[in-house]
């Protein structure tokens, strides 16, 4: 009797139907089953308000790259409209596979102590075939390796040493740095320490929840969001900036919490920054870094979609260009196609690879020594699809420093 949603959270009526979003949608160009951002977003919202039954499950083909929002001249939150419709109207229970893929935090905790075994197993062709058949996780995908020692542990051992620095920041490392690739966190600590900045952990951070959101595990996502907002607020109260090295985590906490989950984050929105922005601004203000004189690298920078949505790709680019010895090449701004857990799903594999192909092709032509990128899932996708090594700009920066 009661219709659950009678009002839209979004400014969908400001859409003038110019269709720019559809022209820039990477999925639209390769998957005919997807109706496109305009139809799925503002057009669809109007129909769903008429009758929730008009929800179309083909909205699941949306990558969540948010390019539509970047290009929309009317600033309509197109991607949020689509994602929120999936959260609101799709009542089919998420599959076991989706739950597994979405639980980055939990899986990390589970896998880390047995990291060598897990890594060996997930790399086995037989295991991959088994996952392909039973879970519909595409067999072509390589799983990120788990690390035996978590970043939290590593930094925990260095808490006292970090406290000695005159300036302090907190670091939101995210699941990837913690469980899979602590080296990136270590690189950040190295760079910041060189700048005279000590790094703290938040009391207890949880996964930002983007994978939970895109797999429609809304309740858990809300739980994580509330927890993280509280944690970040505590840091903000202490006057600490919170840095991150993942563009997706940053976008999720800054934008998606209020937009998709309705969780107020006004208190912390300005205190969470991408590390590249923080460091670039510090250098702008006169801070100096001791660079190696013998450093040379040909770096091609790929702007992750979410970095572009934040509008902060420029900081990473500028930072890389400041490094003596970096031969900088900016790649065209296109999507790599992975979109977090999206590309792992068997039904999306072809779309995912087709979306990324123009980028892969360009990388092959440019033939850099390393591709720089602020997003871990882009890294997996580009490494798997091109064979080129991908590193976070922070890691490249760390390598370029002459310390000791």
């Amino acid at each position: 009797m009661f219709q659950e949603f009678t009002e839209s959270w979004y400014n969908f009526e400001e859409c003038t139907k110019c269709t720019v979003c559809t022209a820039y949608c990477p999925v639209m160009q390769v998957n005919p089953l997807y109706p496109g951002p305009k139809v799925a977003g503002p057009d669809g919202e109007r129909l769903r308000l008429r009758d929730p039954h008009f929800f179309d499950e083909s909205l699941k083909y949306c990558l969540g790259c948010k390019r539509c929002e970047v290009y929309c001249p009317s600033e309509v939150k197109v991607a949020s409209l689509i994602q929120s419709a999936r959260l609101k109207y799709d009542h089919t229970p998420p599959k076991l596979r989706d739950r597994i893929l979405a639980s980055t935090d939990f899986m990390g905790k589970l896998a880390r102590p047995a990291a060598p075994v897990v890594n060996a197993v997930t790399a086995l062709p037989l295991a991959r075939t088994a996952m392909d058949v039973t879970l519909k996780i595409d067999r072509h995908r390589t799983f990120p390796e788990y690390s035996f020692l978590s970043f939290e542990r590593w930094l925990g051992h260095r808490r006292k040493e970090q406290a000695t620095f005159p300036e302090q920041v907190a670091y939101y490392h995210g699941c990837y740095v913690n469980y899979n690739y602590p080296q990136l966190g270590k690189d950040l600590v190295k760079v910041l320490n060189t700048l005279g900045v000590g790094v703290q952990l938040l009391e207890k951070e949880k996964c930002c929840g983007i994978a939970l959101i895109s797999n429609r595990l809304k309740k858990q996502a809300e739980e994580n969001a509330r927890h993280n907002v509280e944690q970040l607020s505590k840091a903000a109260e202490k006057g600490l900036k919170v840095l991150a090295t993942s563009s997706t985590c940053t976008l999720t906490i800054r934008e998606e919490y209020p937009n998709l989950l309705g969780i107020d984050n006004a208190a912390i929105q300005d205190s969470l920054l991408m590390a590249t922005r923080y460091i670039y601004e510090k250098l702008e203000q006169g801070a100096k870094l001791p660079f190696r004189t013998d450093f040379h690298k040909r770096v091609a920078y790929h702007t992750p979609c979410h970095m572009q949505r934040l509008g902060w790709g420029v900081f990473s680019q500028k930072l890389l260009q400041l490094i003596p010895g970096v031969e900088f090449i900016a790649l065209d701004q296109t999507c790599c196609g992975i979109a977090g857990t999206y590309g792992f799903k068997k039904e999306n594999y072809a779309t995912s690879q087709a979306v990324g192909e123009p980028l892969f092709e360009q990388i092959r032509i440019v033939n850099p020594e390393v591709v720089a990128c602020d997003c871990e899932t882009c890294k997996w996708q580009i490494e798997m699809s091109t064979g080129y090594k991908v590193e976070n700009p922070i890691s490249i920066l760390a390598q370029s420093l002459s310390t000791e």
Partner: protein
Amino acid sequence: MKQNEFDVIIIGGGITGAGTQRDCAMRGLRTLLVDRSDIATGATGRNHGLLHSGARYAVNDPESAAECIRENMILRRVAAHCIDESDGLFVTLPEDDLDYQKTFVQACRDAGIRADIIDPDLARRLEPSVNPDIIGAVRVPDCSVDPFRLCAANMLDAKLHGGQVRLQTEVTGILREGDTVKGIRTHNRNTGEDRDFYAPVVVNAGGVWGQELARMAGVKVGMFPAKGSLLIFAHRVNNMVINRCRKPSNADILVPGDTVCIVGTTSSRIPIEECRNVAVTPDEVTLLITEGMKLAPRLASTRILRAYAGVRPLVSADDDSSGRNISRGIVLLDHETRDGVKGLITITGGKLTSYRLMAEMATDLVCRKLGIDKACETATTPLPGSEEGSYEEVAKKIWENPTTAQKVAASRMGSRVSRIRSADRRDEALICECEQVSMGEINAAIDRLEASTLTDLRRRTRVGMGTCQGEFCACRAAGLLAKAHGCIEKERADIDYFLQERWKGNFPIGWGDTLREAEYTQWVYKHVLGI
């Protein structure tokens, strides 16, 4: 019998005319319906789209009220795919007299209308958009109805029963032999051809223009044209009809209709010469917005899509200058007994909700004149499209996993949607993205529903009725029309007319996003397409 001879000719393709033709055709008569332009162009297509429960008339006009509730219940069954069984609220605001509620509920019950007084809290939960300050609420069985769809379904069924429909055919004279009407003289506005048609009975269902038709036949029918203006909002804010629980007044009904919602109306008498070209004035717009906001405050921040006005075909009775106090009752005139002119009847007055009853009454009279004894079946036989259950079920039956566009098409076409199922994926291409109208649906309207212009297509499929008001769909649909007619030149003029007509509705509320949209449309057509 010759090709231009019929048992009955109906003049006027509004809902009354279409309903009358269907009823006559179902009783086995050979029928012809003519209209100077298209179906549902007059009052039929220019109202709220409210299927009255009768509650609005209960206090002042119990007879009409009882009529409404009977017809309301019948149409839910026989015209299911045109109707949204939304229910309605009559709300009392702090400035209204709560005592009126008692009078109102009693009058409703006397007329046979279920009227439940509900807690304002429940009303706010049932309809979250309603003004939170309400102090009283009554729930009644109001519905919303798509008048275009209803009219087209009647016309289609008349055709399926052998009826002939001639649109763009203007009546230029009523043929009389002595005191007997023999037929009509017509002028086809498309081909320029003049033609006579003959029938022993001619039904004048010309609405407000019935006065002129009667004059041609030498009889006098005094119409009382009362203009009503309305505003369309770009999306639904409410899912129940919201009325003010007070004496009927200006802008006190908000109706959810398909993807939009409509607030209205005003009421003012206008000279009959102005009926063909009524415009909404700035004062009316202000009044509609101010009063509308009292029903649902959310309207204040909702984009307004269009403003439009219609003319109620009321029949003159007294000197009431507003027209509010005139009975909305049905007027059936047998000009033989009234004026001594045989073979002519006029059916007018009434309202959208009671169209079927009007058609039944007119057809009964036609049959009496022709000496035919056949019972009316329109109260039990569903219209084409309404034979099967809800559109969800209809869509599921046809497509295993229906897309939004397919579900929306099923909501518009009812069970007739099976006609657009096609193996050719091009038929699924969207012509109108706002309203999700596919190529298959447009082609079905051209083939089956006598659509020959973009405006005709709009009435039958909602193409161009969405937020963008024809920005992209107009040229796409024009392409399909050009292909069907084999004529490009004509379509160029058609696009021009269509967009002008869209702008006419945007103009009175031309600000904000609506203006941005209109400017963008102009840019697309003028500067990109060069039209």
